[in-house]
């Protein structure tokens, strides 16, 4: 039963409309049944009424229980179809919400014009308002969706983990002083400024707020003053601001969590007790240190554990990503358990584990991790904004014009004063000063969000009689920042011509020079004889390399310097692109297409003698091809043979596949290089296997063969011969192709006639007149797709090939 319930939820996304229709029909049907059933058993319906919180649910619940009661009391036919909504209610409703969120996300991207004007967060809040309104219209009580528990334990962690894992460490660490200043001092200032002035305003006669005390005001100030990472992320990701500003605002929003947590607990504690002594202030400071550093420590410990675990997962690749998620979540929960800053723990965990985990886990697992993080965080974010809308409709509101408007104004004013004042101090210490524009964006980007709301929601009704008014003010402030500031920040950024982020991906030259600069600056600092932050960074790096990496990274990879790792990554990406683009028709964009190796190789390099170079190269390449073919065959075999619950593809070949791609890439480069050395026409760098492979898959390539050198050893790859039993398992087409290729090869190999014929034909086409270099180039373009198609894709090219005989 449980399975059928969840199954229904799972199928649902695909047949949304039909599913909804079905649901409505069912409800209708059951609704008619209800009128009968309700009359007979009113006691049960009353009992059920307490359980569900939606109108529809009640109906179904009653109907379901009616079925049962009917069944027990009066002997009826066995119910072929029964409905038990209660059974699945909770997961079903969760799925519905998630579905709604995802569909909304999908919908906004279908209307590009809308999302270019209004930020997604605003649209989502509007959707939430609409949904809440609909529920209310249906005469039901709106469910308390933005429950603090739900928010802090389920919705927030994915977003923060995503932020922490993909945190740009370098700019973050370079600006850590500024970020901390904004996050700690700025938030404190905001909290006390807003709280204090609010209290002052409340004391003014005629506002009817004189019952508000100082401590609740300060508590409110501390809740409202924290910049919210969710809102900041949502808006800043759309405006593509430059890295410095992004990290300043975003880093502040992450790190101010500790301040908020401490202030919140402090004020909550004392608003019951009353007096605050200087001792409490000292305790508060200590508490702040413990909360923030403790959070970081917890996160770092779990991060190291995760990294250490990932060292040993090479045999269970499938659950690799899970370790990371679970460890991070546990870091968050452990920190929350001690009321430490969970956000900081998550950030620390993500940032600590990333470099090591990335080196350990397989490429696929890494992709999985990336996708899962992005998926979870984007769904959470969507849900949070929708829930904000729903909660706005749901909550009881106590609107007080003075309080709300004063809150909004004070927040703006304190933010501006705080940022300007702090920048004035910070700029004295910064090498790169913050300009007025920067200050404006930092001040204007201080958006408030759902964290503030959830904290307000947590407040005790009995202790804080003004809770409703606080919540209303918080919601108004959130709406103000998200709608007004969020919508205007993009035009303002354009108007002020604030520097935007460069979208271009990192080039290898930049990477080289980044490294070079690091070492250079460290060196200069050493010569100057004072220990600046480059010096310490260098020390840390060396320590990391020497000890930590050795412990946490499996195999030999810990020795790999960053530059080499970057190079490998780039190479790997190119290999993937190469395969995806359907073969080596053109080299992918990172290594440029129009310039080949020969353009930068010094010409004076004496070209090796063609006769001697050729066999050598060919032999090496043959080995490669042989390996490629072999591994590929095995791959096909593996794929067809087994379905394994615990592995995606057969494990040993998963890594082999990467090697294969790299080899492929090298092969192509090798060919390019070869074309340099081969000046003798007629001596083509084409092994018979290649010819055959090409012939088999691409008849057009036939014309490109000019001649074959006799000294080249041939290899026989018997794809369909009885010696290789795997061929039985292979796809039909593939064996067919193999058979044709092989038969051709045999013919060629046996008589050598085929090749000569090929040469003849070439002459007929008049292709011999081509200069060698060009011929090579054209071939390089042509042969790779042929090889690729033959190797990787047994399918599509076979059809037309079947009816075209290439040997008369």
């Amino acid at each position: 039963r449980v399975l059928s319930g969840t199954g229904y939820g799972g199928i649902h996304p695909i047949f949304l409309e039909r599913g909804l229709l079905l649901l409505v029909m069912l409800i209708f049907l059951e609704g008619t049944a209800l009128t009968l059933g309700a009359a007979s058993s009113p006691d049960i319906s009353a009992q059920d009424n307490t359980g569900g919180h939606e109108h529809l649910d009640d109906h179904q619940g009653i109907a379901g229980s009616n079925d049962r009661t009917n069944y027990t009391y009066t002997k009826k036919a066995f119910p072929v179809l029964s409905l038990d909504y209660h059974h699945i209610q909770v997961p079903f409703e969760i799925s519905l919400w998630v579905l709604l969120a995802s569909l909304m996300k999908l919908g906004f991207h279908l209307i590009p014009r809308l999302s270019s004007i209004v930020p997604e967060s605003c649209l989502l809040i509007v959707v939430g308002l609409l949904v809440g309104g609909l529920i209310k219209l249906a005469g039901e009580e709106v469910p308390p969706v933005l429950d603090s528990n739900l928010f802090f334990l389920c919705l927030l962690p994915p977003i923060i983990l995503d932020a922490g894992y993909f945190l740009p460490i370098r700019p973050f660490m370079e600006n850590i002083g500024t970020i901390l200043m904004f996050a700690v001092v700025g938030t404190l200032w905001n909290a006390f400024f807003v709280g204090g002035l609010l209290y002052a305003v409340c004391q003014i006669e005629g506002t009817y707020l004189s019952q508000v005390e100082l401590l609740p005001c300060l508590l409110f100030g501390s809740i409202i003053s924290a910049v919210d990472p969710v809102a900041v992320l949502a808006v800043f990701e759309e405006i593509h601001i430059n890295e410095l500003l992004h990290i300043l605002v975003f880093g502040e929003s992450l790190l101010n969590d500790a301040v908020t947590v401490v202030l919140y607990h402090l004020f909550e504690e004392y608003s019951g007790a009353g007096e605050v002594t200087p001792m409490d202030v000292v305790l508060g400071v200590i508490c702040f240190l413990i909360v923030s550093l403790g959070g970081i420590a917890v996160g770092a410990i779990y991060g190291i554990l995760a990294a250490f675990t990932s060292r040993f997962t090479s045999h269970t690749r499938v659950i690799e990503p899970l370790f990371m998620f679970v460890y991070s979540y546990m870091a968050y929960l452990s920190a929350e358990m001690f009321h430490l800053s969970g956000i900081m723990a998550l950030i620390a965990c993500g940032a600590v584990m990333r470099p090591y985990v990335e080196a350990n886990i397989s490429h696929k697992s890494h992709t999985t991790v990336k996708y899962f993080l992005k998926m979870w965080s984007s769904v959470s974010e969507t849900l949070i904004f929708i829930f904000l809308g729903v909660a706005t409709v749901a909550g009881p509101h106590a609107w007080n014009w003075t309080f709300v408007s004063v809150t909004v104004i004070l927040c703006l004013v304190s933010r501006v004063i705080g940022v300007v004042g702090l920048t004035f101090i910070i700029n004295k210490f910064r090498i790169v000063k913050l300009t007025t524009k920067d200050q404006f964006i930092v001040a204007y980007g201080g958006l408030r969000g759902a964290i503030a709301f959830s904290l307000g929601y947590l407040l005790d009704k009995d202790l804080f009689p003004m809770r409703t008014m606080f919540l209303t003010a918080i919601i108004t402030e959130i709406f103000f920042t998200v709608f007004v500031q969020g919508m205007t920040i993009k035009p303002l950024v354009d108007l002020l011509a604030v520097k935007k982020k460069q979208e271009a991906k990192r080039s290898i030259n930049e990477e080289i020079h980044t490294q070079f600069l690091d070492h250079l600056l460290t060196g200069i600092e050493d010569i100057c004889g004072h220990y600046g932050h480059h010096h310490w960074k260098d020390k840390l790096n060396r320590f990391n390399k020497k000890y930590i990496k050795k412990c946490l990274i499996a195999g030999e990879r810990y020795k790999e310097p960053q530059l080499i790792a970057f190079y490998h990554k780039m190479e790997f990406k190119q290999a993937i692109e190469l395969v995806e683009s359907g073969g080596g028709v053109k080299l992918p964009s990172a290594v440029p297409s129009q310039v080949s190796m020969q353009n930068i190789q010094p010409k004076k390099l004496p070209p090796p003698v063609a006769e001697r170079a050729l066999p050598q190269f060919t032999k090496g390449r043959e080995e490669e091809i042989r390996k490629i073919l072999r591994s590929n065959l095995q791959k096909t075999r593996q794929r067809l043979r087994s379905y394994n619950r615990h592995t995606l593809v057969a494990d040993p070949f998963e890594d082999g596949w990467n090697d294969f791609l790299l080899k492929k890439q090298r092969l192509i480069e090798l060919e390019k290089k070869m074309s340099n050395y081969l000046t003798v026409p007629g001596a083509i760098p084409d092994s018979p296997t290649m010819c055959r492979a090409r012939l088999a898959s691409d008849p057009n390539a036939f014309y490109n063969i000019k001649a074959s050198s006799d000294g080249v050893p041939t290899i026989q790859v018997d794809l369909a011969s009885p010696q290789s039993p795997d061929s039985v398992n292979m796809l039909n087409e593939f064996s067919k192709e193999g058979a044709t290729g092989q038969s051709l090869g045999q013919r060629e190999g046996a008589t050598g006639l085929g090749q000569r014929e090929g040469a003849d034909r070439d002459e007929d086409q008049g292709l011999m007149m081509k200069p060698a270099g060009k011929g090579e180039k054209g071939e390089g373009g042509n042969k790779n797709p042929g090889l690729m198609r033959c190797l990787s894709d047994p399918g599509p090219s076979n059809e037309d090939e079947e009816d075209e005989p290439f040997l008369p």
Partner: protein
Amino acid sequence: MGALQSLPDEPEYRDLSEKTGFSFEQIGILHKRFKQLSHNEDTLRRDDLNTIPDLSCNPIRTQIIEAFFDKRNFHQNGEGTVQEISFEEFLVVMSHFRPPALDMTEEQREIIRREKLRFLFNMHDTDNDGTITLEEYRHVVEELLSRSGALGKETAKGIADAAMLEVASISMGHMEPDEFYEGITFEHFLKILKDIEIETRMNIRFLNMDTTNLCKKINSQQDHYLQVNGEQKIA
């Protein structure tokens, strides 16, 4: 120690300050360091820099030291290398690493940018022919990776090749197979590094105040090291 003798009352400091843009205090601190490195001589030799213990594990140590003895970095249109440098030249080289001022016009920014990049370019272009050839570039990458053991050398070549290909394609566009890209000129160098905000990155914090305590500790350490090194040499 030394706070008095480095006070900016010496008239030559004013000259230097105008020339290099350092403040008097900074010049004072750097001068002290210079004296310390050169063992109270007026000029600094390569060996003096070679023996700085912190520098010994820097993979590009030789390039950094060479840069101090490269006439191109002295703002005097000279070429070639020298054997020893005076304090003024030391300061001029150091001034390449000064942080930019808060409010610069676009032109000033561009000038500073070019200056800093020129310094880098000169470090790569060892034979001073105006281009970084493939050989030179390979050398740079090899040096960068020289701390990573055996696997560095081959990969370094590959990386340099890939980087060179990238430069060629960015700066030349399409090339015929028989064309030859000689190397990176300074204009191309500017182009490929346009995304690195060099003017905000290639600078270090020069101390304004004499952090005597710290310096003492470091100095004593340094002296100890120098002594040890000297003794070893003598032995």
